[in-house]
Each structure stands twice: as structure tokens, then as C-alpha cells.
């Protein structure tokens, strides 16, 4: 997993609320047995017409946003299915950070496993950043994970909260299976004790 420290980028505005994982990556692309290569199908049904041609109005088809590494999105981004194909597709397209007023739980967790930083901010701050995003190449948003700040194009700084463990893993690009396996003796003793107290499991 790639580390995440700082990021400065154009942001793509997606103010629609309840953007679900079926929108992010429709089911026909879940048949892959790999993690890579899904970027070309990101937001497929919003991005391409029935003949596979780009829909010019869609934000990521506009020249300014093709290189965006940040999405500023409406409330409850990533709701629906648990498919990790959603963050895989975002990452493969080049998105490293999504900013919203809230995220669906499973999507939020999946982001951290893939080096994507989801940032929750209050509505008024997301509004400022959404305005920045709408300015395309004329406005860049900066993120500093270490100091937990987002800086708008005109220099306003917003602090965001993040779980310390998730932050640590993201800053260092850590594989958490490796970290958990360091605690294997705790797992062994839990299993031993549980085999006494709940032998039917």
C-alpha cells in the first residue's frame, strides 16, 4: 500500500448525496479476480453512454478534472455494497482523497486499506471546498495528514479527525495483517480460553 503524507491537487466536485458503490463501480466490473485496472470503469454508467462514449457533462470527463486526485462529494458517500472494487477503481483512476460530510462505514474502512484518505468535515467547510472544486484548474486543495488539516485554495485551514491507528498505517503504508500477526500469541490464548468457555463455537 502506498503511503499518504501530503497531497495538493485539483478536486472534482460531486455534490450528489448518497453516491453508492453501484454508481462508483457497477456490478458487471466485479467479475475480475484482480485488484487493478478498474479505473477505466469508475462511475461507468454516469461517465459513458450505452455505446461506451464519454458523456461530456460528467465531471471526470471534463478536461480540468481528468487529473483530479481529490473528490469533494455529497453526504453519505460510498453507501451500499461492501465491494472494495469501489476504492480500487477510485485509486486506479488516481483519486487519493475523498472529502464529504459523511461516509458509509464499510467504504470508509476499505479506503484506508488502499492508501485513500476519506475526510469528514462539517457541511459549511465542505461547501467551501466544493466551491473550490467547481473552479477546476483555478483552485487547488491541499491535505496534510500528519497535521490533520485541509487547506482551501484561499488558505482557509480545516482540521479533521482521524483514528490514530488508521492514521499511523496510512502515513507509513503499513499492511495491517502483518501488524496483527505480531499479536498471534494473544490470538492463540484467546482461542484456548474460548474453547473452554464456548466449546460449541
Amino acid at each position, binding site marked *: 500500500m502506498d503511503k499518504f503524507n501530503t497531497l495538493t491537487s485539483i478536486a472534482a466536485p460531486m455534490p450528489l448525496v448518497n453516491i453508492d458503490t453501484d454508481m462508483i463501480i457497477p456490478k458487471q466490473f466485479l467479475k475480475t479476480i484482480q485488484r487493478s485496472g478498474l479505473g477505466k470503469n469508475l462511475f461507468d454508467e454516469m461517465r459513458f453512454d450505452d455505446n461506451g462514449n464519454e458523456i461530456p457533462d460528467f465531471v471526470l470527463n471534463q478536461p480540468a478534472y481528468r487529473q483530479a486526485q481529490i473528490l469533494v462529494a*455529497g453526504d453519505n458517500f460510498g*453507501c451500499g455494497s461492501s465491494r472494495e472494487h469501489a476504492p480500487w477503481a477510485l485509486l486506479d483512476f488516481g483519486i487519493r482523497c475523498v472529502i464529504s460530510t459523511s461516509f458509509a462505514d464499510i467504504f470508509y474502512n476499505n479506503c484506508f486499506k488502499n492508501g485513500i484518505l476519506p475526510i469528514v468535515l462539517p457541511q459549511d467547510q465542505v461547501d467551501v471546498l466544493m466551491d473550490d472544486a467547481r473552479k477546476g484548474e483555478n483552485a487547488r486543495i491541499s491535505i496534510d495528514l500528519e497535521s490533520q488539516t485541509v487547506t482551501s485554495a484561499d488558505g482557509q485551514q480545516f482540521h479533521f479527525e482521524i483514528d490514530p491507528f488508521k492514521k499511523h498505517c496510512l502515513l507509513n503504508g503499513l499492511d495491517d495483517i502483518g501488524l496483527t*500477526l505480531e499479536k498471534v500469541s494473544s490470538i492463540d490464548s484467546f482461542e484456548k480460553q474460548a474453547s473452554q468457555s464456548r466449546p*460449541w463455537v
Partner: protein
Amino acid sequence: MTVAKTLYDKIWDAHVVHEDKDGTCLLYIDRHLVHEVTSPQAFEGLRMTGRTVRAPEKTIAVPDHNVPTTPDRENGIENPESRIQVDALDRNAREFGVNYYPVNDIRQGIVHIVGPEQGWTLPGMTVVCGDSHTATHGAFGALAHGIGTSEVEHVLATQTLIQQKSKNMKVEITGSLRPGVTAKDITLSVIGVTGTAGGTGYVIEYCGQAIRELSMEGRMTVCNMAIEGGARAGLIAPDEKTFEYVKGRPHAPKGAQWDAALAWWKTLKSDDDAHWDKVITLRGEDIAPVVTWGTSPEDVLPITANVPAAEDFAGGKVDAVRRALDYMGLKPGQKLTDIEIDTVFIGSCTNGRIEDLRAAAAILKGKKIKPGLRAMVVPGSGLVRAQAEDEGLAQIFIDAGFEWRLAGCSMCLAMNPDQLSPGERCAATSNRNFEGRQGRGGRTHLMSPGMAAAAAITGRLTDVREVMTESA
């Protein structure tokens, strides 16, 4: 004096392997369910790192999302990508030695129906699966939730998950449901109140007389859609109905172990003075048969209502409703019962159990679907299908004009050939009405099995109570 705890607190506490100073916990996982779509990359990850499955005996694999549901499926899967995914599960299950129900095993079915049916799901357990509808298993008083593929790999390798504890929400449904109102109407009505983000950060415990009065099948329907309300999990405290359902299942404890398990299970309920971070109460008598009109499960109204206007909403929802009405091809003010449908889908992990098929068959008995309509029943498992055939339900569906399919997820998410065409409108007993969910451009209205059966007869969204009156 001990601190009062919720049911969630109790199950959580019983599974903490390790707690860091910042509250991050390593939680032990008792059951890991696996299907073909979200697992291939996880098994591949194990291979690449030389890791193994820590507890194959606690891991259960079954293909469900991609499998065709037509009778010719024993000849193999035509779609090459689907076939590769199902074959990959087959290879992984055998190589890593996990419990496995292959496509042509009669016990095969939707993972969330197979788990309880086989007695893998038991009260007080932690249950995870790379599938958001894992919440279903909460009906047994098990802490059950969906995970992503990286977490699937983590559970395979360590039998644990790194977790932060959620907050406690109580959803109480008082009194009794009126005739024609079902578990599906409860769970959709709750989402109508909370919104699809209302449960974010919480584990919900459903309680109250109306919940107690539900069968285990109904309770699974309620918990199944906890995720659609944004909650990490939904729970219902186990009771005599739970124990009765579990007893004698292939993987349920037997003999002295049953007695020991039962003694613990009976302690699995929230203490009277437990703390709740949020409480929602609905009167069972106030819940009507409902349908969804939009593209989010929160877009729910009683069947007697009219299609709303974007202006009826506030904030970001105004644009979302405008988009939804356009996508759904509906006009504000239109009566919901005037909406004509093309297709009926009865099935899914929400409503693919025997009781759901009984409810739909009761409405359809001696009737025909509207000519020209496409209608299918997809039982949730091979065993549900066999039971429905034994009970004569299959013949009722076939006589009415329904296709009688083999088990799988089918048109709930349309990864197999069962899909809607652009503009095709479906009365569905599934769980998501998202844009494109059942096929690109497809229009989904969510409802109970009885409501779907009623719609099949009239060819439009229909108040099941009217059809029930006719039958009486």
C-alpha cells in the same frame, strides 16, 4: 456493581482479543462466510505472502452472486468471467480446506440464507462476510457485518478484525403489525425515518413487541437491511423462537454442548438500564405496506401515497430527488398505485426464505399474473426450493405464470444473466433500488413478497390489502 450493558456490548466484550490504549480492538471472528465475488483477491493475497487460512473449520464458502438460476446451470456457466470467478472459489475452497457448498449441492444458496439454515450462525457469535448484507445474521443475536476484501484476507489469515467500537442505537417497534404488513415494511419504514445515513456509526438493536412477534425469517429480513440504514450491524436478542430455529441444524451444538450454549444464550439481552446513544420508536400499528419510489432505500412511502416532488425535500436531497424521479420516469403527484410494472422479482437474501415464498404464494393461489409480465421466483437456497416444492408453493407460482428458478442472488444485483433492460420497471423483494442495480437503466421498486405478488396480478404497484380482501 457491574456496568449495565447492551447486547452489542456483551457480544463485543466476549470477543476482544486485544485492546490498544487508543481503544482500537482486535476482535475474534467466530464465523467467516465467503462468496466468489469479494474473495479471489483475498485468497490470492494469502498465496503471495505465503500465509494460510487460520481457521478453515470456521470458514464457509458458497458461490451465489454469479450463478445462473436457470435449470440448465448444471451444464456450466456460460459467461466466461462469471465462470472464472466461481471456478476460483472452487479452487480456493478446496486448496485451503474450508467448508464449501458448490453450485450443484442442494445446500447451495445465498450465503446469508445458507449460514443460518446449516446452523453455522448461532447466538452470541461474531459473523463476517465480504458482503454488506451480512447484517442478516444479527437476527440470531449474533454481531454480524460486512467487510471489504482486504478485511476478508485479514480474517482468513488471523481469524480477527481490527475494529473500533460503534455506538448503541435502539429501534423499538411497539404493539402489533396490522394485516398485510410484514417485516419488510418494518425495515423499510425504519430507513424512511432514519435515512440511509442515520445509522452510520451505530449498531442497531431492534426490539419491542412487533419484533418479538416476528418469525426468525422475518427477523432476518429486518436485520438484513440494517446496512441500508447505514448501521454497522442490526441485532435482535435471541429468545425461544431463536433456540427453536437453531436446534437440530447440522452445525448447531448437540447434547451437553447444547445445554451449555443455551445457558449462555439466555443471558444475551440488553440490561434494563443499559445506555443507548440513540433511540427510535415506531408504533407497529402505524406501519403500512410500503414501496420505494426513488433510487435510495430511504425513498419509501406507504402504497396509498403519491410520488413526492423535489421541492418537498431540503439540502442535497432536492437534486438527488430530481435526478431520481427522472431516472425512475415518475411525475410528482402521481399515485403510487398507478405505476405500471414490467417485471416481478421475488427472492434475495432479504426475502428469499420459505416464509417469504409462502406469503407470496398465499396471494397468488388460484390467480394469474398479468399477461405480458415477466415474473420470477428465485428461492434463497436449494433447500428452500425443495421445501417450497414439497409444500406445493412451487406449483402455485408456476400456475400463476412465474418462472421457478434455482437458488442464487439473481436479479437482486444482476451479476448473473437475470437483469433488467433500460427503462424496465421491476417490483422487487430485494434490498437496493440504486441506479443500475438490477441492470443499466432498470427501475426498481422495493417491497414485501406479498406486495410483489399483488403487483404481479394487477401489473401495477398494488396495495396487498386489496388483493387479500378479494381472496377472503
